[in-house]
């Protein structure tokens, strides 16, 4: 609202409010990351220690004793594969829903949104029995498949919005030029929505990377992912705060970088394309 001339005092107060708010949101993250480099006694110091000599003990402990690398590897494999698979399946469906006018296509879109909203905690025990009868418990392939239940409908809604925002005339021209209709989405449409596609892939990846409930109930030892590592830090005798901060930092940094890459598309990704 550029037209509003704001008095300088109001400006200063508004600015101060924003600075204080920003600090409140960032201090916990800052403290979490710095605590990863503290010695145990500093981690638990009261009042909190802000200036200290960084050590890497917590990371070494997390990697050597807790084998965090295994969890990370599982997280990377599961989240990447499942996100790519979700997009691969969702893209043609999104194209169909965006471009072909058939009876009940809005209803179909609503059904996808409904299925995507199913709370995992309510169905996870059913997933568990299904997986056990298929002998898939504690495998990465199980998580990769199970995650699709949310990933595919979500990606459909997202991609549908991106496809609808580009003009259909380009596709029609290609069809008249003799392009196979089944290939048009891939040859013509796909390159035009690349930024949206990447943004969707990254958001699906982040969600899978952070997913807890399915991973918690469906894995035991071999396929455990990073979020489930939270239970490692509670031993019978102590809580391993230092290694926990190290692991929390390691699990947050990649997604923080990712989200800054897709900054422009982030709002759209969080609201099913409703807010751009």
């Amino acid at each position, binding site marked *: 609202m550029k037209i509003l001339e704001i008095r300088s005092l109001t400006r200063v107060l508004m600015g101060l409010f924003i600075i204080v708010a920003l600090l409140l*949101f960032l201090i916990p993250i800052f403290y979490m990351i710095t605590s990863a480099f503290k010695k145990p006694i500093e981690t638990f110091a009261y009042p909190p220690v802000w200036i200290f000599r960084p050590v890497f003990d917590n990371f070494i402990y997390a990697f050597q004793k807790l084998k965090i690398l295994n969890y990370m590897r599982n997280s990377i494999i599961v989240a990447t594969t499942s996100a790519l698979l979700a997009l691969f399946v969702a893209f043609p469906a999104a194209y169909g829903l965006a471009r*072909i006018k058939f009876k009940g*296509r809005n209803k179909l879109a609503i059904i996808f949104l409904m299925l995507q909203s199913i709370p995992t905690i309510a169905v996870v025990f059913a997933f568990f029995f299904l997986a056990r009868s298929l002998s898939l418990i504690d495998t990465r392939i199980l998580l990769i498949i199970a995650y699709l239940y949310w990933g595919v409908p979500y990606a459909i809604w997202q991609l549908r919005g991106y496809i609808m925002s580009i003009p259909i005339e380009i596709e029609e021209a290609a069809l008249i030029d003799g392009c196979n209709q089944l290939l048009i989405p891939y040859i013509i449409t796909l390159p035009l929505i690349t930024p949206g596609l990447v943004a969707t892939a990254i958001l699906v990846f982040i969600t899978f990377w952070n997913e*807890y409930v399915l991973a918690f109930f469906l894995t035991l030892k071999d396929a455990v992912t990073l979020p489930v590592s939270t239970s490692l830090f509670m031993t019978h005798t102590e809580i391993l705060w230092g290694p926990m901060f190290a692991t929390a930092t390691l699990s947050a940094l990649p997604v923080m970088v990712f989200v800054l890459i897709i*900054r422009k598309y982030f709002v759209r990704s969080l609201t099913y394309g409703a807010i751009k």
Partner: protein
Amino acid sequence: MSVINNRKYALIYIAPAFVIVVLLTLVPIFMVIAMSMSEWTYGQTFNSSTFIGLQNFINLFRSKELLHSLRLTLIFLFTSVTMEFFLGFTIAYFLDRLNMKVNSLLLGLFMLPMVMMPAMVGTVNRLFFHPRGLVNFFVESFIGFRVNWYSAGYALIAVIIAEIWQWTPFFILTTYAGLQAIPQEPIEAALVDGAGSTQTLFLVTLPLLTPVLLVSILIRTMECLRNFDMIFNFFAGGPGNATETLPINIYRTTIYSRALGFGSAKGFVLIALMVIGAIVLSKLLIKYSWNE
């Protein structure tokens, strides 16, 4: 009339996704419905279960603990979403009014809490809300005494604060995007006609923003309703049952009390609430963004 509009291709495009999603969701849901009509002790074989019809659902209405967790869930989501909304709206409105060059950088920084692993947020907050933790350091500096966040009276407040911390940025981003997207002419006209900036905000800007705000509120309400990861890793429903919201209650019924049937009946209630939310949301989304 579009040549792309060839209906026989719709099936080829949509069928694979449809089959996969329906298999992955409807099969578990049917299992939940079947289990909700049984008395089945978790850990025992299927043969040991007995069919009891709607008895679990009848028991639901008599269950005091379900009422308790529904109450907690409502307090949790109502307080969180309201606070997130007001805080987020204020920050977004100020940013929009200030119209600074650093706005996009600030918005980028505000995004960071949202992408943190909710399970890790819960775990990390265990230490932050420890009686001798980071939060109490600030509380003590400002009001002079420490709060025992680990007590039954304060645990839910701690969970709500953690939720507000992580998700207020959602409202900052959506409201800011909305403020940037709404047409400026009505606002300018109101100001030219002599309306003050407060009047303009409430009478012109807010009505224009309604779709954005409704969608944001509904999305957040649904996410709060199914929040499991953060609360579970923070207090796991405790102390006692002070933070036992519906998702945690489902977990405890199924795993602690080993009542798979009763837990599934509760799960079904949660699914029903979410589906109702999703139907309303999809109506809003289609009404506001795809007016075909």
